[in-house]
């Protein structure tokens, strides 16, 4: 009996000490960890917009995230968009408004949220803010997705759309950028488990850059074809790899025009991965365009002073 007590006490003590150590370290590192994740995300977004060390992002660049939630109120489901808005008071702060839209795209209601742009990166804070303003019983909210609007001063630079698509093995996580006319500016593959040497080639410039310039109408009919890339197009697509860019701006413009309408050439030996990425892009882009049009409509009707 004494033994058991001894063991129990010993184990408990050990656990407590271990917990204390781990907790201490967590406190020290939590902030840095979060920061790292944010930086990582940010970097990817900037890269998509075409900014890097050589071409730093302008000061006025601002990224506003629009979150989409599924709001279940009294057995009725509506879409809740969290829109960043200019604060009503004199400060330059950006705060959020929740706009509820029904499935048909009709406006239901709008609420002011007590949350600032910087706080919105945290999921818990967002949910707290939303549940605070929602009226009625049995409210549940469900996070659906988000998109990011990049703006430079008053000019809308691009929409950044994260997406996910089933690839050859597991899901491929990607992020794409669309400009204000809804044509693709860039595509970035964030995470994947494709075969090295085959499907993993989706990371390569020559594949990703084939998507640039395609507008949403073209996207709907875009196909993957099994043809080798012409040499010229390959060089054009991989131009960023070259240290001395051999194309002049005029060349680029003509080449862009020439290859703009082309279908996507599949990666040799990895047609499935190629098709997977294309389908993901199509899916995300078409849905986004539909939604953003509805949203624009509502914004202009309701006179919401959105921050983008």
């Amino acid at each position, binding site marked *: 009996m004494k033994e058991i007590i001894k063991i129990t006490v010993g184990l408990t003590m050990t656990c407590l000490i271990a917990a204390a150590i781990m907790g201490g370290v967590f406190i020290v590192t939590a902030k840095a960890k979060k920061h790292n994740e944010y930086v990582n995300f940010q970097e990817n977004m900037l890269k998509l917009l075409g900014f890097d060390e050589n071409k730093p992002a302008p000061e006025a660049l601002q990224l506003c995230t629009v979150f989409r939630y599924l709001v279940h109120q009294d057995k009725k489901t509506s879409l809740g968009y969290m829109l960043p808005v200019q604060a009503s008071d004199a400060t330059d702060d950006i705060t959020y408004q929740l706009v509820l839209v029904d499935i048909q795209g009709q406006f239901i209601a709008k609420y002011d949220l007590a949350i600032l742009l910087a706080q919105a990166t945290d999921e818990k804070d967002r949910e707290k803010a939303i549940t605070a303003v929602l009226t009625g019983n049995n409210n549940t909210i469900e996070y659906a997705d988000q998109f990011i609007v990049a703006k430079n001063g008053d000019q809308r630079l691009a929409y950044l759309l994260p997406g996910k698509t089933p690839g*050859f093995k597991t899901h491929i996580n990607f992020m794409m950028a669309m400009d204000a006319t809804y044509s693709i500016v860039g595509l970035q593959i964030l995470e994947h488990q494709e*075969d090295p*040497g*085959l499907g993993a080639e989706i990371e390569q410039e020559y594949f990703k850059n084939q998507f640039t310039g395609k507008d949403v109408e073209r996207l709907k009919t875009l196909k993957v074809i*099994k043809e*080798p890339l012409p040499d010229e197009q390959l060089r054009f697509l991989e131009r960023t790899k070259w240290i001395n860019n051999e194309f002049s701006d005029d060349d680029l413009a003509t080449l862009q025009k020439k290859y703009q309408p082309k279908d996507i050439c599949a990666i*040799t*030996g990895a*047609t*499935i991965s190629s098709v997977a990425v294309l389908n993901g892009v199509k899916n995300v882009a078409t849905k986004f365009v539909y939604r953003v049009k509805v949203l624009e409509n509502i914004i202009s009707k309701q006179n919401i002073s959105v921050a983008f």
Partner: protein
Amino acid sequence: MNSSAKDRIQTAERPYFNNLSVSFSPHFRSQVSTERIMWTVVACLMPSLILSMFVFGLQTLIITAVSVISCVMTEAISQKLLNRPIAITDGSAVITGVLLAYVIPPGVPYWMPIPGAIMAIFITKIIMGGLGFNVFNPALMGRALLMASYPVAMTAGWLTPIRDLSLDKYLNAGVDAISTATPLYVLKHYGLNGLIEKFGSLSTLYFDFFFGFSPGCIGETSACVLLVGGIVLLYKRYITWHIPVSVIASTAFFTWIFGGETYFSGNPVLAVLSGGVILGAFFMATDYVTSPNEKRGQMIFGAGIGALTVLIRLKGGYPEGVCYAILLMNPLVPALDQWFRPKRFSEGAS
């Protein structure tokens, strides 16, 4: 013992013939030797190479030569290094070389078979103990390595067959060869209709597959020529019918059941004629070392290869599955040999 008896003992004179051999019984043996079997298999494989030379151009010959030479060199060097008797004349390395070349596309770079040969001979065969002790089929292990290492070249090096045999076109075949998709690839991704669209009507397809005018690996294209070689081996009794027949039958059967849009609507003829089923059934699965010895074991081995082939073709990532099917069944061989022992004589006693 009395002394008189002892005196009677003499050692008889022994006028031995020094040139007479006194080896063990039996004192005469069949003419079939390891060398003869191996070289016969090589000879049975040759028509396919010749046909492939006409269909895909001269580079098939160069690739095969590179493959054979590198296999033989690997065997010689590794046996020398490991202080084993050098046995390159028994022809087994040559078979491996030929088979290795036969399962790679004709459009690959010429150096491509070399790493495959090292894998096939050194790692798969010599390290395991040499001829007779390898678990896996050497040529297919070589191919698996190449497939894993150079996936792009190995899945894109298909050439369009030359149908008109004008000399000018023939000589330039390797240079401006058009990369194309194999019928199995088309079948997997575009269905039977896609196949007919690309290659013509079903009867044309059968004709092309049977006589070898379809894109594919160097030695796999022509079912007809391979069948001739296989039948020679069967006639010479170097192989028995059990493995080839069970492989082909099981491939056809499972394709018929699962290969179509609905159950029982697949096209078994197309499945057997396309890809490497015939080559695998007659020349790879029947490899003595890596196949069971007993008839029942051989049937199950063959049926397993067929089933796995269909499974990989229909559900796997690759359009063709014979290579991996055989490799997957190879480690089962000791178990099959253990389960299916030959019937003992006295077991017939009641």
